[in-house]
């Protein structure tokens, strides 16, 4: 048998070179097993079929059909049983219904037709069945068209098969296996072939392998004695004297921060005050997870009660993670006194004089005082209030000299900067009044009267340009009224006293208008602003004009009539603006309580932002001669700053906060509404929403 041959050869080869032969060995083994299995199967089947065919007719028919094709084949293959009885019919494996309507069922071996037998009718067959006691054994063979009677032997076999046993009772399926063939020490080889030559000559490949090994041994690649055990630890660090050698190479090493050392609360027996009460522990549940204390102190009466810490391993692991996963940077830990952060400022004593405390109060208004203005000489102060009156006070005594009733809440007022023209510009509602204060000597009064005289023709002129402002004579008091289309918020004079500007915040393209008093003429030089205008100021020396909108401050050159600069305070809403008398520095106050100092020569960004007030800033002001500026806000305070501007362009302005002035009380959420400096003295006037004007002196 070839399989056994293969096996024995394989075994032989295995001894010779087991590694290489492992591959081919397996398939041959498998082949052997399969083949022998097949043979056994076949023999069994042939037995079964043979015995069934012993009785003269094959038991197969439609019952088996095509399902048992294999059995057919095996039956055909095993010629020994086929020889005994040849089937009568020779049509082969054709469907029998082809012969259904024919007279014959097929042909015999000589080629003659085999006639169909006469059919018994049902009754006959039934009767035959009843009569014949052996009828149950009979099976109709359709192929040969005959009835077959099964023998007792056959029925026994069928019964055994049905029970799933071996067909023949005498076969013992579990008989011990006897290996008749002794494999070892076989005297005669299975094959008769002569021993090949290769069995007698030394293997070339083996020799090559040996040479390889020899070379490897000579080279020292293969060592036979075990490597010597070196001591695991030795003196790794010698003396640390040579510094250059002992430096760590590569990038700077950032040592990991050491874990925090245990505090009192971690003790197994802390003092009572470190143990949180039950309520406190419960309240931890309400906290955010990351705010919750990681460790809740507990107290154990004695050391023996302390249990093992359940998070020991976890914490060790977390530390490991921190060590190799956390990015490390060198952070400068600031360990300084917070007071040292405060900038070194020149002492306040050196910066005197500046307004310190309240010296005088001017009472008389019945509503919040919106605006104040001091006459150039510093002798008079005018104030306008929401109660619709304008009052004129003497500064040093606090005496109220005059009261004008304007009729509407006064928004803003301003004295004419010329000392010989004591005219007051008052904005109230849609109107701007130019009031003759009646101060000064007779000659001046005459001039003023002339100046404030409005001819009727002019109103006609104004009528032509309906949009423009109309100049009307004031009915009650001697003066002029400028009728505007919208509410006027601010009035500011030019330094020469001839021009003044008014702002209508909701006036769109006509928001800013410049009026000339001598000619009673109004112009709108600025058309485009992009944001509601807040206030406008003339440059103290040059023909420049500052318009502050809510977002930024625009600087126009009036002589060329164009925009020359835009200052970006970066604030939410600008509320006020003031220009340093030198003209190069501007402060801008905002509704968020911040003040920006601009150095016009430096940039359009603020040089400094001073977050002074917690509430809206209402006004800012520069002193005309002293290096002072102030801001006032709705938080009822006014801040006084020292703002020194040096003529040396390299030196930045020095800004020192000096004093917080308090005294006003809040009413309706508003505090100090306006602040102005005295033109000559370091005094500050503030107008409050509590209808009081205060004078702060040094």
């Amino acid at each position: 048998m070839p399989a056994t041959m293969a096996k024995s050869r394989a075994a032989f080869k295995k001894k010779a070179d087991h590694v290489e032969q492992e591959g081919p060995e397996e398939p041959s083994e498998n082949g052997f097993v399969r083949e022998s299995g097949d043979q056994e199967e076949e023999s069994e089947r042939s037995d079964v079929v043979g015995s069934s065919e012993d009785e003269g007719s094959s038991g197969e028919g439609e019952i088996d059909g095509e399902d048992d094709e294999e059995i057919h084949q095996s039956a055909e293959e095993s010629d020994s049983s086929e020889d005994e009885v040849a089937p009568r019919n020779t049509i082969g494996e054709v469907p029998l219904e082809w012969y259904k309507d024919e007279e014959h069922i097929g042909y015999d071996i000589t080629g003659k037709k085999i006639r169909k037998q006469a059919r018994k009718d049902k009754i006959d067959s039934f009767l035959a069945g009843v009569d014949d006691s052996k009828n149950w054994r009979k099976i109709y063979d359709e192929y040969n068209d005959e009835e077959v009677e099964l023998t007792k032997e056959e029925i026994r076999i069928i019964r055994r098969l049905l029970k799933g046993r071996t067909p023949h009772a005498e076969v013992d399926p579990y008989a011990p296996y006897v290996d008749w063939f002794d494999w070892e020490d076989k005297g005669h080889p299975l094959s008769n072939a002569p021993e090949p030559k290769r069995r007698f000559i030394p293997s070339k490949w083996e020799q090559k392998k040996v040479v390889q090994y020899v070379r490897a041994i000579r080279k020292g690649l293969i060592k036979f004695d075990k490597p010597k055990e070196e001591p695991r630890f030795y003196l790794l660090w010698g003396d640390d004297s040579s510094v250059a050698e002992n430096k760590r190479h590569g990038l700077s090493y950032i040592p990991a921060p050491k874990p925090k050392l245990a505090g009192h609360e971690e003790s197994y027996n802390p003092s009572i005050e470190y143990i949180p009460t039950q309520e406190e522990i419960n309240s931890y549940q309400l906290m955010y997870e990351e705010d919750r204390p990681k460790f809740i102190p507990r107290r154990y009466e004695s050391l023996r009660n302390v249990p093992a810490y359940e998070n020991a391993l976890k914490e060790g692991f977390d530390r490991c993670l921190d060590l190799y996963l956390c990015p490390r940077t060198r952070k400068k830990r600031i360990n300084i006194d917070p007071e040292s952060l405060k900038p070194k400022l020149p002492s306040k004593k050196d910066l005197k004089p500046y307004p310190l405390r309240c010296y005088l109060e001017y009472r008389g208004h019945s509503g919040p005082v919106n605006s104040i203005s001091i006459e150039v000489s510093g002798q008079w102060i005018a104030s306008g209030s929401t109660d619709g009156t304008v009052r004129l006070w003497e500064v040093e005594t606090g005496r109220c000299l005059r009261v004008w009733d304007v009729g509407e809440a006064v928004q803003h007022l301003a004295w004419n900067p010329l000392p010989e023209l004591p005219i007051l510009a008052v904005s109230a509602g849609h109107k701007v009044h130019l009031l003759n204060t009646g101060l000064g000597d007779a000659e001046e009064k005459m001039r003023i009267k002339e100046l404030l005289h409005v001819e009727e023709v002019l109103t006609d002129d104004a009528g032509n340009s309906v949009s423009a402002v109309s100049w009307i004579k004031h009915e009650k008091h001697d003066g002029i009224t400028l009728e505007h289309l919208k509410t006027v918020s601010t009035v500011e004079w030019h330094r020469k006293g001839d021009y003044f500007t008014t702002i209508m915040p909701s006036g769109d393209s006509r928001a800013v208008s410049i009026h000339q008093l001598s000619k009673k003429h109004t112009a709108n030089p600025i058309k485009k602003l992009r944001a509601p205008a807040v206030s406008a100021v003339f440059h103290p020396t040059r023909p420049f004009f500052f318009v502050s909108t809510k977002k930024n401050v625009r600087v126009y050159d009036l002589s060329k009539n164009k925009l020359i600069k835009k200052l970006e305070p970066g604030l939410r809403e600008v509320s006020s603006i003031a220009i340093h008398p030198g003209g190069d520095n501007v402060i801008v106050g905002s509704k968020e309580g911040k003040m920006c100092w601009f150095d016009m020569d430096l940039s359009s960004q603020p040089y400094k932002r001073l977050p002074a007030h917690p509430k809206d800033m209402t006004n800012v002001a520069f002193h005309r001669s002293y290096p002072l500026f102030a801001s006032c806000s709705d938080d009822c305070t006014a801040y006084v700053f020292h703002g020194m501007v040096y003529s040396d362009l390299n030196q930045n302005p020095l800004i020192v906060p000096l004093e917080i002035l308090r005294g006003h009380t809040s009413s309706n959420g508003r505090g100090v509404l306006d602040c102005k400096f005295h033109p000559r003295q370091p005094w500050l006037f503030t107008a409050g929403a509590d209808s009081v004007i205060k004078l702060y002196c040094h």
Partner: protein
Amino acid sequence: MPKHYRPPGKKKEGNAAKYITRTKAVHYLQVSLPTFRKLCILKGIFPREPKKKVEGNHKTYYHTKDIAFLAHDPLVEKFRDIRAHKRKVKKALARKNRELADRLLNRQPTYKLDRLILERYPTFVDALRDLDDCLTMVHLFAALPAVGGERIQVEQIHNCRRLSHEWQAYISQTHSLRKTFISVKGIYYQAEVEGQKITWLTPHALQQVLTDDVDFNVMLTFLEFYEALLGFVNFKLYHSINVKYPPLLDPRLEALAAELYALCRYVSAAPERQLGDSQAISSSENEQSEDKKVDAQTDESDLRLAQLQHQLPANEPGTLMHLVEDATGADDEDNETKECKNLFKKLKFFLSREVPRESLLFIIPAFGGVVSWEGDGSPFKESDEDITHQIVDRPTQSHMLLSREYVQPQWIYDCVNARIILPTEAYLVGRVPPPHLSPFVDNEAEGYVPEYAETIKRLQVAASKQVLPMPGLESGDLDDPHNLLAEGIIDRAEASEAAEKKRKLAMLEKQYHDELNMELQGIPYSASLSSKNLQSSVEDVQEDAPADSEQMEKDTRDLSMVSMSRKKRRLYEAMQISKERKKANVNILRERKNKAQASKKE
């Protein structure tokens, strides 16, 4: 255009060139992520924080030089070898080629970490500086159950135990332990070696549970490095005191879980016994499971112990004294070490069964005490007459000897921290001991001094007065506050009087200042204005002086805030917040204390 656009042909520069994300680093090194992790841990390479995170905010960045440093390490190649080798073994096993597998397993590629240690810590002091985590980890693993089949190999745990004992033996014998603290997490120790303060935590000697939420691969990699590091450190330390390393231990003591004691004895005996003797004691230092060994080897080891004791100079105190003399001869000891050495000098301790023996066996000799314990192998028995203190931790002690005091273990720890022998009344058996306070907290800086800390301070002052009548010996800076404090406590009346005087002086001064101010402001006023109003206003100001001064303070603060730059202002505010928080914490403590006292009174 993308955010960080680089035109083609232009090299990367800045942060994009300097830093590399982890994924890219892994690709660059051509290793797997676990290997990369292992490399990083062993080489001590950590992510860094670039100024600009070019690849995105949520990524880990390594410095390119660090990665290049990794790439040039022979360890990378070694890891590849190991991986290939493992595959070979696996293949052989899969083919049932046991022979080949065994052959391969015998020749596993190994690597050593000594080079890495020297690279990371060029000097010994560097290594000591970074030893905290190492010690904590090794002690943690030493406390884990040495059970086969767990994720941690038994040998590793035994090795950890041995290393930790060696370390403790050195610390104990050189008296360099400084502070101890029993916390809930375990016992903290702080030692000072070569001027470096080294703090470590040992878990309580109880069965630790191996949790599942821990990646043991990472921990074991760390442990691998730490074991090597601690081994070399121990070698150097033992070398510095002329003791052979690794020490050969008496297996009997080792078996009795008194390894530390055995080590201590070895270390202390070493100066006498030079090379020749070591052979006599040498024995196979095998670490088998203790329990089995005890029964089998008791007789044998008894013999050996007898031998050992013959070789040792007479008895414990003698050897210790000898060591002390040696040490003083070397004169590298500072005052603190001397102080520590003499703390328990004339005391003899006996530990009963229930106290944490290992910890106390470590601490008491470190502070010059003599100690024995209940059980086999102890140097002296409970019945010894000379025992001064017996450490017990049980509700009641049935049999009491008058010659000794029965104290709870906390007494030892508190004595060590306070550096004086505290009175034992509060710590006697069955009582609830006074609160155990952390020695690591600077009470003054914290702003709250617990009551017991004050008591201890008072006792310290009293002790220092007794011991050192001449304060001239000590440095004046240290002594003065103590004295001041003592005076303050002793005659409080005087102190209060002084305080009152000070207050009065301050008042007078303030008045004077006010007047000065008045004058200063008055002059310009009178020049321009009538001075009457001024007077009245000044008087007004004086009347509501306290309120005004508060206002003034606030004003000045506001004003200074205005002139600060934004950065500084934020910093200042943050500082104020942290200050407030600290204050709030202290307030909570005070409140709780008051409540507790109130409830006590009721």
